């Protein structure tokens, strides 16, 4: 089984936008991987004029929110850093070893959400070099903000279409729909852990883990 990887385009967000943007992206991906019976729930974003879809599953929402909380905590401790969240889908395989039963995760898909959390914009004094003193700094800030907002909306929209495109083009690697309860394939959300290098290691380990079973089996 192949592990397909999708690297989403980097999204430049401000701190207060992290939560909603991540919710939008993560739920959108999971919606496409929750192939059990779902009753979709439309969600209008507060910050952007975008409507995305959730599966309407409480557990799933809770898990995603928890992970986002953890991620925001991490961002608070590590400002000025680009960061990555990895949403992986896997199958659970009972590997029949002779001496112990090992449950193994076979990753079949990974989504990398790349965020660049912008620092809070400097105070208006920074803009005093503008020759036009007549321009109200408040107004300037407002224009800046709305331009930035529009840019973010466009890039989130792009990311959503990127997801749609990926889902459409790559269907063969998706395992058969599990019969058991639970609307989604098993998944995990990896956020950067407290030390950056460990996160990298973690990723590499996961890649290796994913790669190997395919080669062996």
């Amino acid at each position, binding site marked *: 089984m192949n592990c397909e990887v999708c690297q989403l385009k980097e999204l430049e967000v401000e701190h207060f936008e992290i939560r909603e943007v991540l919710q939008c992206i993560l739920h*959108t991906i999971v*919606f*496409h991987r929750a*192939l*059990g*019976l*779902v*009753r*979709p*729930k*439309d*969600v*209008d974003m*507060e910050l952007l*004029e*975008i*409507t*995305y*879809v959730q599966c*309407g599953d*409480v557990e799933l*929402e809770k898990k995603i929110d928890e992970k986002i909380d953890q991620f925001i905590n991490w961002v608070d401790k590590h400002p000025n850093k680009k960061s990555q969240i990895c949403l992986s889908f896997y199958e659970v395989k009972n590997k029949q070893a002779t001496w112990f039963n090992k449950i193994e995760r076979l990753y079949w898909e990974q989504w990398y959400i790349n965020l660049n959390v912008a620092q809070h914009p400097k105070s208006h004094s920074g803009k005093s070099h503008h020759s036009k003193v007549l321009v109200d700094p408040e107004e300037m800030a407002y224009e800046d903000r709305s331009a930035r907002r529009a840019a973010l909306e466009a890039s989130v*929209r792009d990311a*959503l*279409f990127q997801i*749609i495109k990926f*889902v*459409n*083009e790559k*269907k063969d690697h*998706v395992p*058969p*729909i599990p019969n058991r309860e639970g609307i989604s394939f098993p998944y995990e959300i990896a956020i950067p852990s407290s030390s950056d290098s460990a996160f990298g290691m973690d990723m590499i380990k996961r890649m290796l883990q994913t790669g190997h079973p395919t080669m062996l089996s």
Partner: protein
Amino acid sequence: MKGMASSHGNIQSESAKMEQIITEFFTKSLHIILESRSAYLSSRNFSGEQVLSSPSSSTSSSSSVRPRDKWFNLALRDCPAALENIDFWRQSTFEPMVVDVVLVQRPRDWDPVNISPRPGLARNLSLKERFPNCWNSDREDVSWDSKSEKIIERWIIQYENRKSGCSGSKRSSSSSLHTLYKKSILLMRSLYLTVRLFPAYKLFHKLNSSNQLRSFNLAHHVSSFVEPFTRREEAEMQRFGFAPVETACGRLSVSVLYHSSVLDVSSEPKTPMSPQFIPDYVGSPLTDTLKRFPSLPVTKATTQGSLSSSLFSRRHSWSYDNYRASIPCTSFSPSPSPTHIGSRAMVSHVNPCRPPPMSLPAQPPDPTTAETRNIHFDEYWPSPTFSPSTSSSPPVHAPGTPLSKALGRSGSAPVTIPAIKLPHAPSLLKRHVALPSPPPKGSQLRTSRSEKSSAVIDQLSSLRDDIEKASSGKASNTLTWTFSRSSSRLSLQEDFDDAEFACPFDMDDDDDMTNPDNRPESLDQKATLSDPLLSGTLIPGQKSQDAAVGTLVRILKKAPPLRQDMSKSLNASGTLTVPSVSSTISPSTIPTKTTSDALEELQSYREMKDLLLNKSCKFINN
């Protein structure tokens, strides 16, 4: 799909199953598209409710899983428009399905009830001037009942049979069915999301989420054959195609041509909307009252202590649901015309019953015109229920009449908003708009039995709120004035009299509080209490604290309503005079009232509220 694997070897049933999947694929696709394009079916309201309510109830709202929901594991809201249109594809052999989403724009003189021009209201810009970019296409057709229609999306769902015939052995066909089904699920998921990302969805969203009349509407028509776009038209549109799903014998595909410039329509009015876009509606008492509806329950909610949260929560489309739910006209049924003719007639019958202030200025007083109006209503009724292609007959084109035209005429109905909602207006207004109206009796009793002190606080805060509105809100002034003038049934007097039973503490503590003989006493107290300096000595030791609070509440209830003053003054010479109703306060004490008086009084009410809050906190703690 359960028995699929067991049918190994049975080619007949395999292909039957595949056919069924394909049919359901058409059905579901149409459902997904129309559910997010066909206005007034309030699919958004449904989801809004879900967002609002607790997560667990999201499934309980329509807990039963219907067979239709199971297809592609996607449970959708009811969409009669989709059901109506699907019959043809259920019977036929995989004809392509073309779904056109049409933007219908009103001409400038469009009037929801009468086509006659309306005097007295200023109209500054024509629609064409307001929307230059929507009219510049070469499809400009003022001849069609002076409406402009433009296809903004064309969805094409088709099944292409492979010429070489079916491939694959029996064995693989079984597994390919599974794969086909899984891939179809995936396609449906992304279709569901994608329809919400296209520009047309914004229009749909606006139509459904706002209570204003729009100058545009969305219509749709579904057919197996359409006039292809001209090259020029097609050049203006963008294409999005979903990756086709391969089947054993062919492939299923969904694609769409869409106008990205639709965005201009939806975003442009957004900012200048209130002052310029439809001044006729925005500024009129009609829309003001309509606009107030969603917030009205808030007034009621104060008795439950949820004032702040409900006041400031984002207003959603579902806020209308309360008013919609009880009205039969909105319950679209999937069955063809007879029912709908009935409901249409109903709407227009209801129409003349509207109270004078709600009706549009130009509505002729002559009731005999109701007949004429029926016709207009029919013309503007939305297409979902009024399409020529009824369920019994496939959408065959009448020769010479392009389908789009035939459908287009029936394709829009912004009328639904006023026509449906207005009949309910009088009762609502009567109960909520007037300032001194007490909460309904029932809730009073309920609150008195439960959390007493908090109820008092809430009542006070709601009262204060009203006072604030009265002293500052211009809109509410206008509103009160309009209603007190034009309809005696809605007069404040009546509500004011109702205030007799307003005190929740009467029944518990002190019966003679309600006795009119005690009023002078209350008046004295009032005089004392309204003085902020003395208010600290609130009824010292006379009665139980409950009783004291009760008295105070009653005094406040009895106090002359500020807004009434203003309305009266507006009616009369423009000077503010004491209303005769306020028997509880001697005219000599407060001879005239000005805004500053009102503010002062508000201030004192505020202080009283704070005091009460303190007291009740202590009371609770004790």
